[in-house]
């Protein structure tokens, strides 16, 4: 017995889903979806749940994460109900629900809040730069330290509790019995999803996008590794230096295409960009570019005269690490990997 809650639709609209009430339940979206199976069928079911406002059912569902938004459902929808966009919005909504701080929800729903956060972090960096008397070496040292500390603390303070909450909503609360052994045997699914996203390959006509995405993930993770653990900006090893150039270039070159397709809006999945989508791609692009430029300026020995470049890079880095990674679209990368893992647990 479930109580209908029409307010949910109003709430979900704040996360970007606008048109799904036009749905007349024909099921063309589910039929056309190349990822939907008879055991796990979507998007129609989730559109229905969203219309009726069945929050518990949605929270317990991993299906939003099973969708890779090829956009075929939205193209085929006879009512222009944009099922693909609904699935995307549900992912945003779920992210907000998993997040114990509720900041994710605030970021998604309120553009002013997001902008304020970006401005505040920028001011913070400026204050820090003044305090450090614009001493480049000191700033770069702190910057490097910041990265490692930010990763460690966000992981423990934000992500671990959030993943546990996600596990609670999707496995424990629906009373799915999973023997411990299966947690171990299914862990492969988690890594495969995180690094390869192989499910996305099943989306129709999606090879190139998958490949771009794959390269970007590898590039991004490598850049993270190079800067944090190999200390790229201070490294003297030729291999590390060149590798850093390559991976940072990969990050900003690939994101150019992502920004470009969001601007051109040719495909269904690019037609309805939310601020969170823009922040994600633009900041990723900026991060790759500023990192590349910083190292280039170091190698050309002109960074001392262009301290503002590093301050810009540091600002981007702080905003990325404190806003976009914990409360923005970055989390999709994490939750999706866990969702596939949990789905595997449920499936057995």
């Amino acid at each position, binding site marked *: 017995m479930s109580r209908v809650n029409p307010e949910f639709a109003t709430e979900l609209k704040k996360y970007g889903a606008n048109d799904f*009430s036009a749905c007349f339940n024909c099921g063309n979206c589910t039929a056309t979806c190349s990822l939907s199976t008879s055991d796990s069928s979507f998007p129609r*079911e989730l559109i229905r749940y969203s219309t009726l406002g069945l929050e518990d059912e949605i929270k317990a569902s991993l299906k939003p994460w099973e969708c890779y938004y090829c956009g075929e459902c939205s193209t085929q929808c006879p009512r222009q109900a944009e099922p693909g966009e609904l699935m995307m919005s549900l992912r945003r909504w779920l992210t907000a629900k998993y997040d114990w701080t509720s900041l994710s929800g605030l970021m998604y729903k309120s553009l002013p809040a997001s902008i304020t956060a970006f401005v505040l972090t920028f001011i913070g960096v400026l204050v820090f730069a003044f305090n450090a008397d614009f001493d480049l070496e000191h700033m770069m040292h702190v910057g490097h330290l910041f990265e490692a500390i930010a990763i460690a603390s966000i992981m423990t303070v934000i992500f671990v509790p959030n993943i546990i909450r996600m596990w609670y909503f999707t496995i424990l609360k629906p009373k799915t019995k999973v023997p411990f052994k299966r947690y171990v045997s299914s862990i492969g699914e988690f890594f495969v999803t995180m690094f390869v996203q192989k499910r996305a390959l099943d989306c129709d006509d999606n090879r190139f996008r998958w490949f771009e995405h794959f390269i970007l993930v590898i590039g991004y993770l490598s850049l993270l590794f190079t800067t944090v653990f190999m200390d790229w900006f201070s490294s003297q090893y030729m291999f590390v230096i060149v590798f850093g150039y390559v991976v940072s270039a990969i990050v900003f070159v690939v994101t150019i295409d992502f920004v470009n397709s969001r601007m051109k809006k040719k495909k269904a999945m690019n037609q309805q960009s939310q601020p969170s989508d823009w922040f994600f791609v633009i900041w990723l692009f900026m991060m790759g570019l500023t990192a590349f430029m910083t190292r280039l300026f170091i190698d050309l020995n002109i960074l001392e005269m262009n301290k503002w470049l590093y301050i810009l890079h540091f600002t981007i880095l702080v905003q990325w690490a404190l806003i976009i990674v914990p409360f923005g679209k970055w989390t999709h990368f994490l939750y999706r990997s866990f969702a596939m893992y949990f789905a595997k647990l449920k499936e057995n």
Partner: protein
Amino acid sequence: MKERIGVYICHCGGNISDYVDVEELGKMFHQEDNVVISKDVMFACADSNQKDMVKDIQENNLDAIVVCSCSPKLHLHTFKNVAARAGLNPSNYVQVNIREQCSWPHSDRPREATVKAAGLIRAGINRVSFSESLENIELTVKKSVLVLGAGVAGMKAAIDLAKSGNEVFLIEKDFFVGGRIAQKDGLFMSGQKGKEIVASLYEDIKKQTNITVFTGTTVEKVSGSLGNFHVDIKVKPRFINGKADKQAVKRAMDECPVSVDDAFNLGLTKRKAIYKNYPEALPDVPVVEAELLKNETDFVAKFASTLNLNEQEETLSLIVGSVLVTTGYDHYQPKEGEYGYKTIDNVVTLPELNRLMELNPEKLVYNGKQIKSVAFIYCVGSRQTKGENKYCSRQCCTSTIHTSLQLKEKYENIQTYHVYRDIRTYGKQEILYDKSSKQGDIYFKYEEKEMPVVEKEGKSTIVKVKDYLTAKKQMEIEADLVVLVTGMVAREDSTHISEMFKIPIGRDKFFNEIHPKLKPVETVIKGVYIGGTCQGPKNVSESVQSSLAGASKITALLKSGTVSVDPIIARVNADACTWCGKCSDVCDYTAIKEVEADGKHIAAVNKAVCTGCGICAPVCPANAIDIAQYTDQGIESMIDGFMHEVEIREKEVNPEEVQEEGKVGMKEYPQIWKNILETMDEKTTIPQVVEKLKVSGELVTYHMMTMNRYGVVVPAGMDAKEEYFYYKKK
């Protein structure tokens, strides 16, 4: 007895002659008594043959003809017209169906088909020899029409009838015109208010000098028939002094001490005992419920000059040529407890909600509570596969969705839920569904076997529904107001009206037309037509369409002042009849009455009413009734004719003409076949022929296949590449 009969036996191309030995039959009836001409013809219906027949009839002075061909449904009138053109009374024509009844069904047994045809033809000849020359019955009709019911359908039809030159009596049972549409505020698609439509129609009616409107009037008695219906009507008094000052009448209304439930607002409000349905209601004279003022002597005394409580009801007799029944429908009234109706305080019907909306211009309030959410339950009292009302009420889906849109337009923040079985917003009405679903109305689908339940939980009302759109999940909807979407049912008095006018009613109590497609507004009673929702559920447009169709039929019928009726009716032999009344008892049309003639009581048939159905003839113990063209003598002679022995020989077949399966007797091949055959060597493929003849591949393929079918060529293996078949001459 006819003595000069012409018989024409049709080949119908080969449709008949392929199986029935038409030539033999043609010869057989040459010897028949009284048959002057007997011919077999290729196509009897062909123009040339029709001309020949006319010539035959005139030259040989034929007095009857028989055509043995196809079904009379196809060509009865063709040949009746031939007879008429030749100066022969069309009643002296009989058609015998030897195609549908002989050659087609018995194609496997040609001899028997021929024997059967011979029997039928002989029966036809015998029948035609007893035929009489009959003339259509001409009736004088009065160019006046009774329109029963002044709803939108009746009012519009009355105006059209009057404009076409008929005198119209428009009768309304209520004291005010307009019917149901006056109760609806804003109609799809024009957006006009029902009351505005009523006012403009009434204005048009007033402009027509030949419409008389009677309100508060019922039909008491109907007699007579097409052209001259005698209708007695009873006009109830309004108890208002006709000369009274308008202001005084208004004061009386305001000061009236007695209040009762307002039926126009479906009991949602109270009204005075002196009332109008609504302030602009027409005619613009209030009505006094005299019964209720019995004890209010002071009030009555005060307004003695305004009220006229002694006014008596009047009975009037009208004579009309035709009747248009537009009595409309009743809303289905849910039983107590049906979805909590009357047992749960916030359950109402759709018509009640519509009144409620009109009465609440600012905020929607019911039982003192502001309504924020409304749940509609569809198909209440309609589409009951096991209940009384099996039909779909057709207009309620649209009406509900339209109401839902109006709710959101009129009041802020109202959430609506639609618990439906199937949404049937056909045609342009689909626009409404589109709008409703896009604005966020939530739809739930239920099935009849799992009906929704309305329950009270604490202070809130819950609709529980097994939702077929959510994998049959049990859903709970909390709603401030539950609205039962009730359909249309036949009016309570439909049986009474049906008995008075003899209009047949269906199991659903709605009036029945003769044929839903071909005679959609005609009833089996000549001169009585139906329009609007008294016939079945319809929306406003469809109601008006059907009543106007009725109006047009009536105008055409009465136009010339006379009506020509088929002469095939019952006839009473006055000498044999002793008036036992049995014929009158069985007559569905009350066409038979007892009359006194030459000091004797006998039955008399009303020519205008009788349909010639024939039911009276067999019940007559004195055998005093027969039906024109279907006399006992004629029918007995047909039986004799059919039983007459026939000698038909098995058709002798020339062994040389026996052909193999699939072969046809072809005297000469078509030119293209010859051309193709000329090009063919020992073995030839289709592309080779195409190459040589320089014609299109499709053409060659078609003819090669056809030649193969008829055994002119045969396949001879495939070519080396296994692409094409070789063909060779057989």
